């Protein structure tokens, strides 16, 4: 059951049990809600952005261990980063968890987010790991017009047919 231990690493279980930045953010000037209608998971991401830098971030919501730990770790990683840096980290993270044909991500640059590399062996759980990130992305672009509500349904299509069965 190595894949299970890879998925549910100690650091992930720790973030799930003791989520960081798990509150409403009174100083938030950006926020977005994300949900997975298929499983009922939902998350709200709050941002305090000034001069293109995420000064503070928090989240609230409900979800499985992967969704909750991912949201928690995301908040601790992007706090203090510029919006551009956060977007780049999201891109790298997404590459890692979707594990495409030739994944191009920098495991070292991802730092402790590398704990989620085990998710790529569980295609149906990719949406859990990326829900908070999609929501962060929506919150960062909140002021832009016609923002599409974040949906993770696209993830499912991407992973269709990618069966992990051996």
């Amino acid at each position, binding site marked *: *059951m190595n*894949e*299970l*231990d890879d*998925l*549910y690493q100690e650091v992930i*279980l720790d973030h799930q049990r003791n989520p960081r930045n798990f509150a409403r953010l009174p100083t938030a000037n950006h926020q977005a809600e994300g949900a997975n209608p*298929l*499983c*009922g*998971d939902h998350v709200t991401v709050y941002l305090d952005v000034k001069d293109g830098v995420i000064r503070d971030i928090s989240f609230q919501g*409900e*979800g*499985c*261990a*992967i969704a*909750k730990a991912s949201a928690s770790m995301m908040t601790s990683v992007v706090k203090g980063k510029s919006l551009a840096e956060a977007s780049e980290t999201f891109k790298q993270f997404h590459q890692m968890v979707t594990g495409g044909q030739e994944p191009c991500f920098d495991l070292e640059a991802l730092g402790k987010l590398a704990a989620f590399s085990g998710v790529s062996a*569980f295609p*149906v*759980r990719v949406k*859990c790991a990326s829900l908070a990130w999609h929501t962060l992305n929506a919150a960062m672009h909140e002021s832009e017009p016609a923002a599409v509500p974040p949906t993770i349904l696209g993830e499912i299509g991407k992973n269709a047919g990618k069966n992990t*069965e*051996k």
Partner: protein
Amino acid sequence: MATKHRGSSLANSLDVERVRRDFPALTQKIHGHPLVYLDNAATTQKPNVVIDRLRKSYIEECANIHRGVYQLSERATASHEAAREKVRHFLGAEKISEIVFVRGTTEGINLVAQSYGRSHIGEGDEILITAMEHHSNIVPWQMLCQERGARLQVAPMDDNGDLILPEYEKLLSPRTKLVAFTYVSNALGTVNPVKAMIEAAHRQGAVVLVDAAQAVPHCELDVQELDCDFLVFSGHKIYGPTGIGVLYGKHRFLTAMPPWQGGGDMIMSVTFEKTTYAPPPAKFEAGTPDINGAIALGTAIDYIESFGMPAIERYEAELLAYAESALTKLPGLRLIGRPKHRAGAVSFMLGDIHPHDVGTVLDRYGVAIRAGHHCAQPTMKRMGVPGTARASFAFYNKPEEVDTLVACLAETQKVFRS
């Protein structure tokens, strides 16, 4: 293994190993483990006879029905209508014209909401459902209420997941025009006192629809004895193909109801000025139906009847009681819903481990269960949980599989160090 099974005593009522040989899907390995399929409330696996019947239909009688003058079409029509007769007999309906083929339970409910509902429900009227409905027996009525200015009332359930019958009766009034409820809760396994519920509704003059999607696979039922006005179920939950289901409606209602979809097969005659409709069931079956799906559903019913519902019910009751007791013995496991009468499913929480995580770990051991809200979010809210893990059974499941489930749940606790 965490618990000892008592397979021999269960085997007395039904030879489960013989049943399992009829289902080729059950011999699969998943992640290197034998498949333990416990998501039968979502859909059931298919026996060889059903798979073979589909193949035979496509080879020997692939033609459109009710129109061809050639032999293939005659064969297809005869098989299709023979399947309708099998359904009639299975449900104990009086007339074959009371059996309408639809895509499934959801479409059946929508048909009644759109056709009967829009022509009989008006402003100030009330529709009564229960707190344990599947979304498919909530949303079509909400849509109807919104359109017609009617009100949706919800009969509550108690902490065990049982309907509170006196509260249900209190909500019935002359304003109640339609009552729709599930026979068996898909999320909790509760069997409702449907006979009493139907009688109470009829006393107030309300029309009753029974969602029997989770009942038909597990309970012997007879629509005339129940005296329900409408009853719906899905073929794929009783070992038939997906895409085919049944709406039963009393003849006088189906006759009075307007069609809901227009097209071929549902007409008597068409001119550009006026169309006259065919009598039921054709009136509600516009377009080419799922011909082979219906035929294979007939085969699935034959298959079930070769064992007899009473034997299936007896076997499943023992299996379910065994599962409930084995699950309860696992420290940290909490049953969600402890209804007086249960069929089909057991819902539970494993400590504070999220049901999706439980489902993921079990899958790696080849155990397939459902995790989440089971398309019954209000039910989850009432029980105070975001979702549950649910094991749901068919008569091909055996006590050894319950043991595997329990052992893998203990493994799950280890993964989560809880």
